[in-house]
C-alpha cells in the first residue's frame, strides 16, 4: 500500500488514539493537582454546608466535625469495593465493574460525599455502566436483587451522575491493555519466556489482573495511562517478561520519535508502588468511623425530612408555581376554556409545548 495516499487526513506526527479520548483530555491529573481538586472541593462543600446549618439553626455548625478530603476519599474507595461485590453477585463482565468504579471515582472529583452518599451513587453508577458498556439489564431486575432499593433510588441520581461525568461515558481500561500485553508477549519470541509459557500464561494473566483490580482502589487511573498501569501490573507478576516486552517495543519504535525512555520505566515503578501501597480495601473500622461522622455532617438540605430539606423543597415549589402562573398569564387568561380547543394540535408522545421553560 502506498504511503503517500492523500487520505485519511494526512495527520503530521501520528498521535495515539488514546490521546484523542475524553479520558486523556479531561481526566488526567498530577498527584498535586488531584490532591488540590479534592481539598478545594472539600473546603467549598464544608463552607456551604456550614452556612446551611447556620441558616436554619444559628450556632449549630460549631460542634459539627466535617469530613476532610482524605476521609471522603476513604469512603469512596470503600464503595469501589462494594461495586466489586455487586458485580460478582450479578456476574457482570469485567468491563462493567471497571467502568462503574471509574464513574464513582470521577463523580467524587466533582461532588462531595457530604451531599451525595456513595452507597447511593455507587448503585446508580453501576447501573449506568451496564448501559454504557452495552450490557444492559432492566432496572426492575437490577433493584430486585439489591435489598432496600427502589427503582427511583437508582434513577433519581442518573442525570446527576451523567452530568458529573460530563456525559463522557467511554472509559479506557487497564485490564484491556493487560490482555493485549499478554497476547502479544506470548506471540513474541522473548528470551525469558519459558517453554511452557503458553500453559502458565493464563495464570500470569490472572495474577496480573488482580493487580489491575487492586489499582482501581488507587488514583493510578487519574495519573497514568491504562497501558502503563497494565504494564506495571504485568511487571509485578512477571518482571523479566515485562522488561523484555518493553524493550521489544523500543526496538519496534526505533524509527519513531516517541522513544520509550527511562520516564516510562520510572512511571512503571511508581505505579507498582501505588498498587502495593494503596491498592487495598480500606479498614472497615476506619470506614465505619467516617460514615458515623458523615451522618452528622451531611448537607441537611439533602436529608429527606429535615428542616433544611423541607425549606428547600418549599422554595423550589414556590419557584415552579411562579413559573406556572407566568405561563398561564402568557397563554392568555380569561380565554374561554372551551373555545379554540379543536385547533390545538393533537397531543403527541412528546409534549413539545412544555419545553421552553427549561430553567
Amino acid at each position: 500500500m502506498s504511503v503517500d495516499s492523500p487520505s485519511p487526513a494526512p495527520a503530521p506526527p501520528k498521535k495515539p488514539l488514546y490521546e484523542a479520548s475524553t479520558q486523556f483530555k479531561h481526566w488526567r491529573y498530577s498527584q498535586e493537582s488531584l490532591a488540590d481538586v479534592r481539598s478545594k472541593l472539600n473546603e467549598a462543600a464544608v463552607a456551604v454546608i456550614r452556612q446551611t446549618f447556620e441558616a436554619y439553626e444559628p450556632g449549630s455548625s460549631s460542634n459539627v466535625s466535617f469530613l476532610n478530603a482524605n476521609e471522603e476519599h476513604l469512603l469512596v474507595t470503600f464503595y469501589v469495593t462494594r461495586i466489586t461485590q455487586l458485580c460478582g453477585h450479578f456476574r457482570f463482565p469485567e468491563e462493567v465493574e471497571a467502568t462503574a468504579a471509574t464513574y464513582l471515582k470521577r463523580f467524587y472529583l466533582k461532588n462531595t460525599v457530604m451531599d451525595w452518599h456513595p452507597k447511593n451513587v455507587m448503585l446508580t453508577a453501576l447501573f449506568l455502566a451496564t448501559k454504557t458498556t452495552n450490557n444492559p439489564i432492566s432496572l426492575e431486575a437490577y433493584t430486585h436483587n439489591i435489598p432496600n432499593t427502589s427503582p427511583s433510588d437508582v434513577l433519581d441520581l442518573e442525570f446527576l451522575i451523567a452530568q458529573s461525568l460530563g456525559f463522557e461515558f467511554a472509559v479506557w481500561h487497564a485490564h484491556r491493555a493487560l490482555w493485549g500485553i499478554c497476547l502479544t508477549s506470548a506471540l513474541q519470541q522473548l528470551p525469558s519466556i519459558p517453554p511452557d509459557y503458553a500453559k502458565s500464561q493464563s495464570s500470569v494473566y490472572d495474577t496480573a489482573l488482580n493487580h489491575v483490580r487492586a489499582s482501581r482502589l488507587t488514583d493510578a487511573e487519574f495519573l497514568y495511562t491504562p497501558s502503563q498501569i497494565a504494564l506495571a501490573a504485568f511487571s509485578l507478576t512477571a518482571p523479566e517478561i515485562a522488561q523484555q516486552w518493553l524493550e521489544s517495543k523500543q526496538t519496534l519504535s526505533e524509527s519513531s520519535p516517541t522513544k520509550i525512555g527511562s520516564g516510562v520505566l520510572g512511571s512503571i515503578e511508581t505505579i507498582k508502588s501505588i498498587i502495593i501501597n494503596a491498592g487495598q480495601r480500606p479498614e472497615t473500622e476506619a470506614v465505619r468511623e467516617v460514615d458515623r461522622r458523615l451522618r452528622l455532617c451531611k448537607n441537611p438540605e439533602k436529608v429527606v425530612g429535615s428542616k433544611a430539606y423541607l425549606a428547600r423543597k418549599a422554595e423550589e415549589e414556590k419557584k415552579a408555581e411562579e413559573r406556572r402562573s407566568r405561563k398561564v398569564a402568557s397563554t392568555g387568561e380569561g380565554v374561554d376554556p372551551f373555545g379554540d380547543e379543536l385547533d390545538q394540535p393533537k397531543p403527541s408522545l412528546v409534549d413539545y409545548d412544555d419545553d421552553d421553560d427549561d430553567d
Partner: protein
Amino acid sequence: MDAVERENADRQKRWAKEQKVGEGTYAVVYRGREVATNRKIAIKKIKVGQFKDGLDMSAIREVKYLRELKHQNVIELLDVFSSKTNLNLVLEFLDSDLEMIIKDRSLVFLPADIKSWMAMTFRGLEFCHRNHILHRDLKPNNLLTAADGQLKLADFGLARDFADPGHKMTCQVITRWYRPPELLLNARYYGSAVDIWSVGCIFAELMLRIPYLAGDSDINQLDTIFRALGTPTEQEWPGHTKLPNWHQPSTTYPKTPLRDLFTAASADALNLLGKCLVYEPRKRISALEALKHPYFFAIPFPSHPSKLPKCAAQVAVRAAEDAEQANIDQNSTGPGVRAAEPGSRKRKLNSPEEFRARSIARRLDFAKQANSP
C-alpha cells in the same frame, strides 16, 4: 445549587433554541444558535422521563461515541446538557442528507460528485473503524451534508465497539436495504465489513438514483441480493450455509456482471463497488483500503465539496434564513435541520426487535409516517 448543576446551567445558557424543526416519537429537534458566536446549531432534545430504565440505550450510544469522535466527516456533538427530565444534544447544524439529494430529480450528479461523496463517506467510516467503532446503520439519510458540502456520518444510536472474538452481537442492526447478507443470515459474530456492505449499497444508489437492493421483507431481502449479485457458492463464501438462518434457496441465480446494470460507471468505480459487495465478509474491502483504491486517484478527481449538488429546497431555506436574520422575521417557517420534502419515502427498520433496539427516534421523521419500504 450544586457545582454540577451550576455547570449544567452554564452550558445550557451557551445555546439558544430558536424553532422546532422536527419531531420524532421520543425526541424533538430545534434549530438554534450558539449565543456567543451566533453559529447555527441543532438541539436534539430527548425525553428521558418516559423510559422506565432511565437513560435510553440509543441516547447513551450516541452520546458515548460522538463525545469521543472528532472528525471532519463525522457529525460533531458540541455539547450535552440536561433540562428537567430531558437530555439535550447540541449538534452541528446540517441542513440536508444524501437521501434528499438523491431523490431530488432536478439534480444531476457528475461522476466526480459521486466520487467526492464516496471519499467523504469512506473517510468518516475509516475514522470510526480506526477507533474500533461499528456504525451499524449507514444509509443515505444518515449521511448528512453541511452548508459547505462536507458529508458527515450521523446517527450513532446503533453504534458499538468492536466485540472481542467469540463475543456475540445482535444481528438486528442496519436498515434492511443496506444490511449485509451475513446479518440477514443471523450471523452473531461480525465486524467492520457490515458497514462496508452498506456503503456499497449507497455507492450503487448514488449511481442509480434509486435504492439498489430494495427488498420488501427480511426474507425477500436475501433473495433480492442473490438476484442482483448471483447466489453465493460455497467457494466464494465458505461456511455461509452453516449460518443460523440459511435455507437452501429454491432458485439459483447466475452472476451477472455489474456492468449490465451500471452502464455508465467507470471500470474503477465498478471494481470498488464489487469489492464492497463481496459475499465473504473477510474478503470485503476495508475502509482504509477503499481510500487507497485507484478509483479515487483516477480522472475525474472528486468534486470539491462546495461544488456538490444541493437540493433546491435546501438552497431556498438558506436564502430565507439569511433574509430572516436580516429582518429578524420570527414567523418564517422554513424547514431547518434535515427537513425532507413532504411524502419522501423513509427507510425504516421493520422487525419488532429493531423497534425495541431503537426505542427512540434517532433519525427524526419530518414527513411523518411516510410509506415504508
